[in-house]
């Protein structure tokens, strides 16, 4: 689930590395792989790390996938180191499944779980941010370091000892996790390979290491493609026979006396509902997000405050969508009395995608060469004129990527709207902002979990295909738009 985010954002960061760097490296007789390893990756490291953080955030917070696949065991996992083929019950799924039936203390407990999940994500995210800061400090050393106010004298020997202990412990932990996961023998084999590589690496020529690196890169690319292929094939093969015009334009029928636990009919209101939700989320998030991203990179002075804002945004981004759901339920639905409604769904999906829009806008705007700004300012342009006419247009492809990613996310998101905006069955098309709607992803979940029948399963497959096509259509449109901008603006 985290993969597409990481791939896409990393690619953008790597493309943004100026071509001169590469040429300079080639000119010194470096191989392509050496250039990538020593020049391109270090320059792009902040973007790539951001990508990984975004990806991790996505994986931890994922509710729906684990709810339908992994989280079907309501009991405690039997062993503390869980076996990988056994169902488990992650926090996200617990909240998702039990929120529907909870009342009183149970609800409070679920909210507490939400807090725990949030704190977990906060810790992971801060760790990732800390690593990012360390890495970027290595490549962009600060001009001067402020003397620490309190200087604790530690001898180098003690330092080494501490380092050794920390490394030792982390290695042991990693060893333990891996050996639980893939078995002891495999782990030892992996370690041997690692040690072997370490010894051999001195003997490997630049060309050979280039070859090895390429193989790994190509294999990774193929794995991504094959996974994508399998997913697409499976969904299309299962869903295609159920999707026709009638399926898309009729209302679902679920009268229990007629069909029992099964259903009939189409998904027209769900398509409409998802459309409204996504459009609403875009209206909420895109203008604010782009403005905030521009503010962060162009106006805000680098310092403590921007750091706090950035950490906040990253944390929001990593915040599990089910926590957004809890927030929406307690704040929007109950406190502001919006009720379970389309408006709540639009707002919460907007909040959900806001961090992505902000961060990608910021990265895109930052990658515009300083010379453009100076050229414009030197003509007597105000800062705003410069941003509007010279900075933003060439940054548009990058900004659109962020929007593309987030729109895809909003369209497919289930957890935050499950208890705040949708119903399993709408009698008509959504009429106003304060009525609940049907949505494709939640419909998929309901069909799979609330109904048990062949027709319901077929409808679920059909719904999955429609959702897939819808999301792909969003992406395709945005990619065309992006390429159009790329062609128009070159530098």
């Amino acid at each position: 689930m985290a993969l597409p985010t990481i791939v896409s954002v990393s690619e953008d960061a790597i493309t943004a590395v100026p071509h001169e760097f590469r040429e300079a490296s080639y000119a010194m007789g470096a191989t392509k792989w050496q250039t990538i390893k020593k020049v391109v990756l270090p320059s792009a490291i902040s973007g790539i790390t951001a990508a990984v953080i975004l990806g991790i955030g996505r994986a931890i917070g994922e509710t729906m996938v684990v709810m339908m696949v992994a989280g079907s065991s309501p009991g405690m996992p039997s062993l503390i180191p869980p076996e990988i083929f056994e169902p488990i019950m992650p926090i996200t799924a617990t909240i998702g499944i039990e929120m529907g039936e909870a009342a009183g203390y149970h609800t409070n407990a679920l909210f507490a779980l939400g807090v725990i999940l949030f704190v977990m994500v906060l810790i992971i995210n801060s760790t990732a941010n800390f690593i990012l800061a360390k890495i970027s400090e290595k490549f962009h050393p600060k001009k001067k370091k402020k003397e620490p106010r309190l200087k604790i004298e530690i001898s180098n020997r003690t330092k080494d000892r501490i380092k050794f202990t920390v490394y030792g412990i982390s290695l042991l932990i990693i060893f333990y996790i891996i050996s639980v996961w893939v078995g002891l023998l495999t782990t030892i084999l992996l370690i041997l390979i690692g040690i072997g590589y370490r010894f051999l690496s001195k003997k490997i020529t630049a060309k050979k290491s280039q070859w090895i690196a390429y193989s790994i890169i190509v294999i990774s690319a193929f794995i991504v493609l094959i996974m994508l292929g399998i997913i697409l094939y499976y969904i299309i093969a299962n869903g295609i026979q159920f999707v026709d015009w009638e399926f898309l334009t009729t209302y679902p029928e679920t009268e229990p006396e007629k069909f029992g636990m099964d259903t009939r009919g189409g998904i027209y209101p769900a398509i409409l509902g998802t459309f409204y939700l996504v459009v609403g989320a875009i209206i909420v998030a895109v203008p604010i997000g782009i403005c905030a991203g521009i503010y962060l990179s162009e106006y805000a002075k680098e310092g403590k405050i921007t750091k706090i804002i950035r950490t906040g945004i990253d944390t929001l981004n990593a915040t599990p969508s089910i926590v957004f759901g809890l927030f929406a339920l307690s704040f929007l639905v109950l406190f502001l009395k919006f009720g379970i409604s389309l408006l709540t769904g639009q707002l919460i999906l907007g909040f959900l995608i806001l961090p992505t829009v902000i961060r990608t806008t910021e990265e895109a705007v930052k990658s515009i060469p300083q010379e453009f700004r100076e050229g414009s300012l030197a003509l007597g342009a105000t800062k705003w004129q410069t941003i509007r006419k010279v900075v933003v247009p060439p940054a548009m492809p990058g900004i659109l990527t962020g929007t593309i990613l987030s729109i895809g996310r909003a369209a497919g998101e289930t957890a935050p709207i499950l208890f705040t905006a949708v119903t399993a069955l709408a009698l008509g098309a959504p009429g106003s902002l304060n009525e609940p709607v049907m949505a494709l992803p939640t419909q998929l979940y309901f069909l799979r979990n609330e109904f048990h029948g062949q027709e319901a399963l077929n409808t679920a497959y059909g719904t999955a295909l429609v959702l897939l096509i819808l999301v792909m259509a969003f992406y395709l449109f945005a990619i065309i738009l992006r390429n159009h901008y790329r062609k128009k603006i070159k530098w």
Partner: protein
Amino acid sequence: MYNNLAGMQIVFETKNLNLHYDDNHALIDIFMKVPKNRVTALIGPSGCGKSTLIRTFNRMNDVIEGCITTGKVIYKGKNIFDPDVDVMDLRKKVGMIFQKPNPFPMSVYDNIAYGPKLHGIKNRKSLDEIVEQSIKQAALWEEVKDRLKNSAIGLSGGQQQRLCIARALSIKPEVILMDEPTSALDPIATAKIEDLCYELKKQFTVIIVTHNMQQAARISDYTGFMYLGKMIEFGRTTQIFKSPKKELTERYITGRFG
């Protein structure tokens, strides 16, 4: 230091100008006068502060964080660092050409029309006129008149730099600052820019930073030699190059720098 400026109209005058980047003292006690309708060159080894100095004249150093300027730069009887001075207005009067050609990623036409549009000219016809006139002034018209709608990024380096000059001219400045404008260009393109400087001084005041001493000798009327943030010597170009008063200047000009 002000010798040989008698009878000249003065455009810029710096008084006790000091500039710090964080803890780097980049400009030290600069006193200098820039005569009108002349080409004034600033020379000196890398890192001597000449680019920093030229960037104070249109306050481009404002963009750089941690940059603190003290002292005065008088332009038209007013200190440009006074709080009531409109920086945008100053930059409109004092145009700038950068070291690396930096055309915007737009068409040739839009690059030139950018400035006039900023300052409120919307009429298509007058824009057309300004674009044509500016490009002609920058001696680029014959080369680009058939591709005004093409992207400026497709031009050669020399053409791009002249485009940037045309862009600076489009808002009818009084002073043109050039920060090593030919350092990224080939000799032919350089020669074209140098000729252009000669033409430009009839209408404008030109201040040019250059690494190339021959260039300073060829095109400038006045030359300032800077070293380690200080203005070592300032005077007529002929005097600086033929009979420098300071030993440091002489050593630099004769290439015996150590």
